[in-house]
């Protein structure tokens, strides 16, 4: 064996392995590993690849259901949607790279999630992204946001996947640790799904796509370590994405799949060749033998360590039968791509890597892929616990109009057009609802049915009450789907947390996962996959626990789907659900009163589900003109958004009756509420549906006029021209980016 480096404690530490883990490695392979082998274990046993801290808790998520074809474990989850089609979807984080190099970090994040989808045989039909930044008055945060958004745009637009939605939240905790979570949905034919399995002894192992360079060596371990002062040094580990190559790769892969030339396929994302070879072999109970001299290389003099650990983008590993190799190569040549045989599938479950005629790696794949120790890390709630805040200590607004306009300028609430205008959200001509609706709606060509997708996750809730926040994240995503008329069919989730070695972070994690699990169970939706991103701490400060839920829903008849904007003057505005005395954890408290405190809204999942059912039934019976869920900013913001999203900035007047304080009533974020509009003649039918499902429903007002008016118990609270409110909402984010 070459590369006889002595492996000392320092080396082990640099590879983010503990001494116990190292001892286990020695035991598993029956000798000292060499440096390349150590690198391989280090990658595959990193938190990012092995889920060693999260596994025990992730088991609590419900993963089964009658339509689940593939749950967690593969590159993406798969749900059978009938008529011979499957939906393939997944969410991934690219937080650390996006902080280091916002444009390329975010771009390659998009590239990675796209490959996860098309490696399974699905054509990506839509993408979304969930972003978290620090406050925009800090220039560094603006430049991160600018870079991230243009990076996502740069990659997605060129590749040709519509970026149809997402969410953006702002909080101090993301200042040195932005979050970039990328979601993608693909469609495939049920009988043309491909897995990462190296089946069939002696089948050829082909390397396709871009050449290998010294990119992002140790990217996966980087994503598994806290950033300290040595940030600068870790910097060169960022890759440059090539969306053009990726597009060619997509077309070539789908073509060889369509022609039945592929046995198994796996993208080379984080952990590159290492991950794809070992996982494909382990999944199939086989081994793989490759010769590194055959790997297309961009740079000279690369060592086996570098080649195996490189994270160069836009590459895939394909296993094909010997007599099909030539045809595979022809297809790739048509798309101007390399497809090079680098090895073969072997018996005996070992990864065998040769270089310059010598064996440089010889290890059991199972030990690398499946035998990483799982940790049940210590957890404990923070002490002291999060402070509760009593309404009585909160002063009521002097000037409601002013406060309301201010709330609309919170970047978390403000219009996100500055973001999504940079994304091609219409390519592929399936986008039936443009960004701005509660959920994005995608038609399926030649079908009545449509898919709806949404991302959600309010981390202020999960910070203050992790379990309840976890439930709410699921509930809100499902509510977004219900608002357009979609029934949820599957969940993917990205769990962004701090350092799991800290007991209070682990506690947050456990609580959130249990909350998410409970909600998914109640809504009866399977979790088909996701991603965990730990170590989102910079200089010892952790982000708020941030689960991002990506939920896919199905609309049976696209012509019945409903959007959030008011449609016509004189419609009745009806509230489904109840207003409660809950102001804690609200965006109003955070942005206007600068208090990140209080209890989160309490959620009754069963009631929530019934609210969705009322909405879904009403949409199915074509009783609703619009529906919009109440979330950040509360009832007032929800209603004014319906005005903004109407074709003409149509106003409304709300005449509320309530015993609640007006500020609580207007800005509180009680869950399980949907604001709908209906015509006079349908009022009774909708009320009957509400009664049937034991849901409270109340008429709040009517649409029309060009002002937004609210009164409570006949007392006028404020009135504002819709246009004035609209401008505040619309200009808030662009204002930060104006050249001064």
């Amino acid at each position: 064996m070459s590369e006889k480096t002595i492996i000392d404690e320092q080396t082990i530490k640099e590879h983010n392995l503990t001494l116990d883990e190292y001892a286990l490695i020695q035991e598993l392979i029956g000798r000292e590993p060499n440096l390349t082998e150590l690198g391989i274990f280090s990658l595959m046993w990193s938190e990012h690849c092995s889920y060693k801290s999260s596994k025990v808790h992730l088991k609590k998520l419900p993963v089964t259901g009658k339509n689940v074809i593939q749950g967690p474990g593969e590159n993406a989850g798969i749900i059978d949607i009938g008529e011979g089609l499957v939906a393939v979807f997944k969410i991934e984080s690219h937080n650390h790279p996006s902080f280091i190099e916002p444009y390329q970090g975010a771009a390659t994040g998009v590239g990675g999630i796209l490959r996860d989808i098309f490696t399974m045989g699905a054509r990506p039909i839509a993408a979304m992204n969930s972003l978290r930044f620090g406050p925009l008055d800090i220039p560094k945060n603006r430049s991160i946001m600018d870079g991230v958004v243009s990076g996502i745009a740069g990659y997605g637009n060129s590749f040709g996947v519509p970026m149809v939605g997402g969410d953006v939240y702002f909080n101090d905790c993301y200042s040195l640790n932005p979050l970039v979570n990328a979601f993608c949905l693909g469609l495939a034919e049920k009988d043309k799904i491909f897995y990462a399995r190296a089946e069939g002894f002696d089948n050829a192992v082909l390397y396709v796509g871009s050449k290998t360079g010294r990119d992002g060596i140790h990217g996966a371990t980087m994503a598994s370590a806290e950033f300290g002062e040595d940030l600068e040094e870790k910097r060169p580990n960022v890759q440059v994405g090539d969306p053009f190559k990726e597009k060619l790769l997509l077309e070539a892969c789908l073509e060889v799949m369509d022609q039945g030339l592929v046995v198994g396929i796996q993208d080379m994302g984080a952990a590159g060749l290492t991950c794809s070879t070992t996982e494909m072999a382990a999944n199939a109970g086989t081994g793989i033998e490759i010769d590194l001299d055959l790997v297309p290389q961009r740079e000279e003099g690369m060592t086996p360590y570098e080649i195996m650990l490189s994270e160069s983008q836009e590459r895939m590993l394909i296993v094909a039968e010997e007599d099909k190799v030539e045809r595979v190569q022809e297809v790739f040549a048509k798309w101007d791509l390399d497809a090079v045989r680098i090895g073969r599938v072997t018996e005996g479950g070992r990864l065998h890597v040769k270089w310059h005629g010598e064996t440089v790696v010889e290890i059991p794949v199972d030990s690398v892929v499946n035998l990483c120790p799982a940790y049940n890390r210590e957890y404990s709630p923070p002490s002291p616990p999060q402070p509760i805040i009593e309404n009585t200590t909160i002063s009521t607004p002097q000037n409601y109009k002013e406060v309301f306009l201010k709330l609309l300028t919170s970047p978390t609430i403000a219009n996100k057009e500055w973001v999504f205008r940079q994304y091609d959200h219409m390519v592929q001509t399936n986008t039936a609802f443009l960004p701005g609706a509660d959920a994005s709606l995608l038609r399926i060509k030649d079908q009545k049915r449509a898919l709806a997708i949404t991302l959600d996750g309010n981390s202020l809730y999960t910070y203050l009450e992790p379990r309840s926040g976890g439930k709410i994240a699921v509930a809100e995503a499902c509510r977004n789907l219900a608002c357009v008329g979609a029934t949820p069919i599957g969940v993917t989730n990205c769990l962004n947390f701090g350092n799991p070695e800290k007991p209070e972070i682990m506690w947050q994690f456990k609580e959130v996962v249990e909350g998410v699990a409970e909600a998914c169970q109640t809504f009866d939706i399977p979790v088909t996959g996701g991603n965990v991103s730990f170590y989102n701490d910079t200089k010892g400060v952790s982000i708020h626990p941030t689960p991002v839920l990506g939920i896919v829903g199905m609309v049976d008849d696209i012509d019945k789907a409903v959007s959030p904007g008011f449609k016509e003057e004189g419609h009745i505005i009806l509230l489904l659900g109840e207003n409660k005395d809950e102001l804690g954890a609200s965006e109003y408290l955070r942005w206007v009163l600068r208090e990140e405190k209080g209890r989160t809204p309490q959620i009754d999942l069963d009631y929530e589900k019934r609210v969705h059912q009322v909405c879904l039934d009403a949409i199915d019976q074509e009783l609703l003109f619009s529906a919009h869920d109440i979330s950040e900013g509360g009832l007032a913001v929800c209603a004014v958004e319906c005005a903004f999203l109407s074709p003409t900035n149509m106003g409304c007047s709300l005449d509320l009756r309530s015993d609640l304080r007006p500020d609580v009533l207007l800005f509180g974020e009680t869950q399980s509420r949907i604001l709908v509009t209906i015509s006079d003649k349908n009022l009774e039918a909708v009320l009957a549906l509400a009664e049937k499902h034991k849901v409270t429903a109340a008429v709040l007002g009517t649409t029309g006029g060009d002002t937004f008016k609210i009164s409570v118990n006949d007392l006028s609270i404020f009135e504002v021209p819709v246009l004035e409110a609209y401008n505040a909402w619309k200009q808030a984010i662009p204002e930060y980016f104006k050249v001064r």
Partner: protein
Amino acid sequence: MKIRVLVSYKDSVLDPQGQTVKNALHTLNYDCVKDVRQGKVFELELEEVSPEKVEEVIPEIAHTVLANPIIEKFEWQVIEE
């Protein structure tokens, strides 16, 4: 005074644009072109600065604004006094 700053990807970083240009040149039968790297050039017009100041300011500007030191390198020269 006129300064020219050249910014390009570090040698180890993939340069998709340069590669694509190279391939295009090959289809046009310019086979003598073995490699292409593409970068950016900035021409800065400066006023009222001493040569010493320039020595200080330009690398600073290049490092913080014009180039992204994580993936890019730069060089600069005076092209007009």
